[in-house]
């Protein structure tokens, strides 16, 4: 029996390597036959041409990528912004503390771990760097967030920077400091408002567009900060969701809850 399993394992490895080599071969063969990069192919440029040539005029955004993902193909991005939310819910289910995954026999273990985390938070180097870095990080995040329609950036990248700043804040100054501002209720409210706004704003544009109605969203002057129609407000909404979700992940992975955890602190 043991020999057979060994033989199977060996065979499995060999077959896996052969499969991978085959796949690599097939993909290389395919790539060699694809149209060359930068080649003018009249068949394939129909869509791209319009994005590049008329994108600024039709969407009001100088950053054509932002115009593409938030205006031409906004439906895809509507889904994409909910992917992150879905991931947050999954992590909450898996790591959020509840009666079932907080058994009594683990209590002592958790307490020790919990205290250790807080000792780590007093690190003086981390604090000093935090003092210097945090204002810049938040400002940089907001700058990228607000300039999505003008330059590379936008909601996802700006939100990620702000989320990272929040994480450094929590790591340097301890969760108690963050908990004064950032509670689970705040995360819930912000996510709810941002995503609801996103869904309904885009739903409205889809609805008016498909029914041939005027949507009354001013496009603004391309190049100005207030331009690109809905792109700026949508970027802000996405940015908030991304920042909150990133910090939520960090908090869940470290202590199993977002914000102050009453049930746990009462046991201390």
């Amino acid at each position, binding site marked *: 029996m043991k020999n057979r399993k060994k033989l199977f394992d060996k065979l499995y490895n060999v077959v896996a390597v052969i499969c991978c080599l085959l796949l690599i071969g*097939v*993909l290389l*063969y*395919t790539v060699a*036959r*694809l*149209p060359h990069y930068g080649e003018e*192919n009249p*068949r*394939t*440029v*129909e*869509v*791209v041409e*319009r*994005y590049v040539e008329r994108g600024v005029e*039709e969407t009001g955004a100088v950053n054509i990528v932002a115009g593409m993902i938030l*205006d*031409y*193909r*906004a*439906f*895809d991005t*509507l*889904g*994409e912004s*909910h*992917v992150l*939310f*879905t*991931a947050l*819910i*999954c992590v*909450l*289910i*898996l790591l*959020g503390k*509840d*009666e*079932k*995954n907080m058994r009594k026999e683990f209590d002592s273990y958790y307490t020790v771990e919990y205290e250790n985390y807080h000792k780590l938070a007093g690190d003086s180097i981390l604090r000093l760097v935090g003092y210097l870095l945090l204002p810049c990080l938040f400002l940089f995040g907001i700058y990228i967030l607000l300039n999505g329609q003008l330059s590379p950036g936008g909601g996802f990248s700006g939100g990620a920077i702000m989320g990272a700043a929040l994480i450094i804040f929590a790591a340097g100054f301890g969760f108690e400091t963050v908990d004064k501002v950032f509670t689970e209720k705040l995360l*819930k409210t912000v*996510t*709810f408002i941002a*995503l*609801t706004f996103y*869904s*309904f704003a*885009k*739903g409205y*544009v*889809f*609805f*008016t*567009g*498909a*029914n*041939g109605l005027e*949507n009354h969203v001013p496009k603004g002057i391309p190049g100005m900060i207030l331009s690109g129609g809905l792109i700026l407000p949508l970027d802000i909404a996405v940015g908030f969701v991304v920042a909150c979700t990133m910090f939520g992940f960090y908090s869940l992975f470290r202590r199993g809850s977002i914000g102050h955890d009453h049930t746990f602190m009462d046991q201390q």
Partner: protein
Amino acid sequence: MEFIRNYPLFTIVLSLFSGVLCYMLKPAAAKIYTLVFEGLLIGMVGCVLFYVIVTGQPFTYVMGEFPAPWGNEIRAGILEAMIALLFLIVEICSISAGHRFLVIDMDESKRNLYFTLVNLMTAALMALVWTNDLFTGYVFLEILTLTSCGVLIVREIGRTTLAAVRYMILNLLGSGLFLLGVVLLYDLTGHLLMVPMRQTIAELARDPQVLPVLGVAVGILTIGLSIKSGLFPFHFWMPDTYGWASPTSAALLSSLVSKAYIFLLFKTYYRAIGIDVIEQLPIRNVLLVLGIGGIVVGSLQAIHTNNLNHMVAYSSAAQIGYIYMGIGLGTMAGYTAAMFHIMAHAITKSQLFVTTPRLAEVSGGTLKFQDLQGAGLKSKVAGLYFTLGAFSMIGIPIFAGFSSKLLFALAAVGQGSHKKIILVMLALAVSSMLNALYFVMTLIRIFTPEGKLEKDDLRHHHINYHLPMVLLTAANLMLGLKSDLVVSLIERGLSMFG
């Protein structure tokens, strides 16, 4: 433009919003809200179905002010509306019937999150059914992947976490391969919308230099989606995934999620690549052979296993095989049979997965066959519903399973190749026999009296359980008895599907 044409958009956007809303609600409120909302969606999709049947024309709906090929699009025809309606009905039935077990499986403080996931899953299912754009398909495929892992892990026992990790790894592999296929197709054609893509591919396919590249792209895309839907030999994740999940989750995953992937694959073939191009590639025959392999291997493994839920899960692998066999036949009759079987299997499997936990409950919380003796007598209600589902799976006349097997046989006879006729007929015969073997074995087991019978505690079966079960049985009988009506609708749907 009639207002009904907006309903497909509403089903997607409102489902997304409902997901976010349920995050804010209390668990009890989230449950009631979800059920009412699903009811509303059923009404909307019913209207759309009625509308497209009356007008006899599919309609496309531009998402925003930019028409195809620049902006996104969704499209509704008879087939899409039928599948969407079926998905919603099965979903509402599974949620309602499985809720009692969800209360046991999941802590009160998190139960609203389950409904968040269910609503997001609805949005993804609706988007996959309506979409007319390959990349939109990919985005909502991701949401579907994440939500299906989410509804798996809610039980928080080791087995489900392990199953969810394995399911997620395979699903991500599948998504990645699908994305790679889409990228290759985009590189070749420059389009992501399905109809313009098909027109470009029709031109490209004449060039013998490009055809192999096209074959690789379609092949990778097919492998990706067949891993996700569990076609043989990628079906090995099924028993753990379906076997240990919370009943509602198992029903949703086996009845809806895997079907949505198949529907997307079929739509890609039909609308984005074109049937005549698919016919030039060897993919159809591969699907036929793998489908038949799935039928035989799935049935054999179902006989070997010692766990009721694993048996039902392996039988799912066999049923997925049927659907791929229908697509692999490559004729209209084959596609019709495959679509019919998607419906028949979705209805039957969800019914089985929400009855088995009750059978386990009355036999001391175990799904092992030797302990299940007399379970159908201890809980007569669950026994009865299980029997009805099992009859449909075996293919007893008047049930949906019989009609779909008949359709597969007719489709096989209707096409030209003798080899395929023999292959399909043999597969049907062998699998019907094996199906009958393991389901009848189970039925005998659960209806053999053992020990003293206690009175069936009817408290466990109130209207929330009976109503969905009766509804699913009625749908099952309707598919069985009125199959000509359903088939004619599917045929009309297919004629306007391209």
